[in-house]
């Protein structure tokens, strides 16, 4: 029983990371029906920029916790800029010419370029990220929980709730939702929908960068850390549905927990299989996702 609980706890943590990255996919899909397939690389870049920043701040004899907090806004700003660059270089033209696939290749290409750049700046080795919280685990009825794991869950939920509140309460957030509802009609309201799409890309990469510095202290940081996370988060986005916030969290948790259970009870070699089988099942039985509304593309 304790082993099971332990597996679930770590599954929930990694599941929340998937959910935040998938949330980023959802943000751009809502406004532009396009995705940044370099989302995993946005996470990796965020983590590495965060690493350099936090080490610099610690070098100024700041405590790790204070340095981590000060680092966050810098990583956020970096993510916003990085996402805008992706939209500007890879997506804008494809949307303008109504290209069905141009943005797919363009965002994958940008992701590879970002990875190469990161390898040249930070090297190919995995680097340790200083943990802002004590690394000793708390013992809850025999289940060990790292304080950083709690921070991951709270941080992930916090980010998603903050964006949701922004969308519901502020006029700018309403403009984003309006653009997602009906881009032409939003334009008639005086909303610059192209800017809204750039903004959704910026926010999407910011979410990924945040996920990067959340997960970095419990894993390791490096140029290759993003690829698998980005792909699995994509599976989560499909499983949960690209239109449902709750779907992402549920999808993330399902994938995170089944991975851990399979890894322990069956074989770590099969760790990735159940999630992907679930993905295939969802695609064949409920293509809009577990929580998505069915949308039939009119031709």
């Amino acid at each position, binding site marked *: 029983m304790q082993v099971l609980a332990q597996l679930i706890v770590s599954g929930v943590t990694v599941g929340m990371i998937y959910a935040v990255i998938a949330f980023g996919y959802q943000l751009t899909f809502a406004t532009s029906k396009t995705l940044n397939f370099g989302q995993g690389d946005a996470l990796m870049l965020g983590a590495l920029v965060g690493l350099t920043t936090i080490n610099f701040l610690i070098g100024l004899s700041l405590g790790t916790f204070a340095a981590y907090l000060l680092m966050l806004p810098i990583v956020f700003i970096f993510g916003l800029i990085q996402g805008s660059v992706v939209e500007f270089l890879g997506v804008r033209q494809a949307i303008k010419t109504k290209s069905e696939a141009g943005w797919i290749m363009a965002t994958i290409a940008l992701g590879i370029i970002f990875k190469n750049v990161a390898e040249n700046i930070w090297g190919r080795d995995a680097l340790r990220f200083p943990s802002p919280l004590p690394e000793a685990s708390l013992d809850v009825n025999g289940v060990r929980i790292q304080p950083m794991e709690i921070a991951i869950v709270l941080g992930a939920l916090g980010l998603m709730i903050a964006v949701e509140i922004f969308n519901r309460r502020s*006029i*700018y957030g*309403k*403009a984003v*939702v*309006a653009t997602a*509802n*009906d881009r*032409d*009609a*939003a*334009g*008639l*309201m*005086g*909303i*610059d*929908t192209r800017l809204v799409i750039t903004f959704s890309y910026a926010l999407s990469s910011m979410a990924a960068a945040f996920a990067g510095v959340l997960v970095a202290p419990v894993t390791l940081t490096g140029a290759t850390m993003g690829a698998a996370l980005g792909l699995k988060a994509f599976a989560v986005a499909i499983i949960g549905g690209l239109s449902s916030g709750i779907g992402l969290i549920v999808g993330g948790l399902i994938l995170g927990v089944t991975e851990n259970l399979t890894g322990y009870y069956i074989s770590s070699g099969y760790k990735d299989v159940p999630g992907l089988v679930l993905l295939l099942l969802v695609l064949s039985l409920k293509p809009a996702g577990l929580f998505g509304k069915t949308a039939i593309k009119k031709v």
Partner: protein
Amino acid sequence: MLQVENLVAGYGKVQVLHGISIAVPQGKLVTLIGSNGAGKTTTLRAVSGMIEPSAGTIRLGGDNITGLPSHRITQRGLAHSPEGRRVFPTQSVTDNLLLGAFPRLTGSRPKGDTGADLEKMFELFPRLKERREQLAGTLSGGEQQMLAMARALMLNPDVLLLDEPSMGLAPKLVEEVFSTIARLKERKTTMLLVEQFAAAALEVADFGYVMENGRISASGPSAQLRNDPAVKAAYLGAAH
């Protein structure tokens, strides 16, 4: 207030408008009538920047707005209540109305009192007041039409374009829509109205234009058009 000269526009390689000229004077209601496919909706779409005109000029209050993107044109004071209502289904009635005032709330148009204007809209369309917290997607067709018109009015526009506000509505609601338009006219709202109910539109309008195959085939004060034998025969039916 709004002047369209020799407007040419279309979709891709298909040219729909072959040189349209329309003038909408300040405080007047001008209607554009014609059969399906004549190019009425395309005219409005080109005027509000939803499609880019390939030739001609559009002036709003003397400024050339030809080729501007639709959000810029809206910020300059032209509101367009589009064909098919196009309300934002996942947002509440109130939020839809606030989005109509987006340029005012974000500083690209004089703010004025948006709260008071919201109340004014609820006065003009009492049904919307009852449903103010409801999602726009759950409204009936008639209510959505009221919402689309109210949303456009929230801009405090210099010119209001109305595209087929009666489309798909029950006869009783059509009457309601026209009486609302008459009330807006009394308030000196400058309007360009596209309608399939030609007789009712000419009844309420000051001037009319008749469109045929992407060209203006007749125009004049609406009283005059109502008595024009050719217009009568083609659009008004024998009863008139």
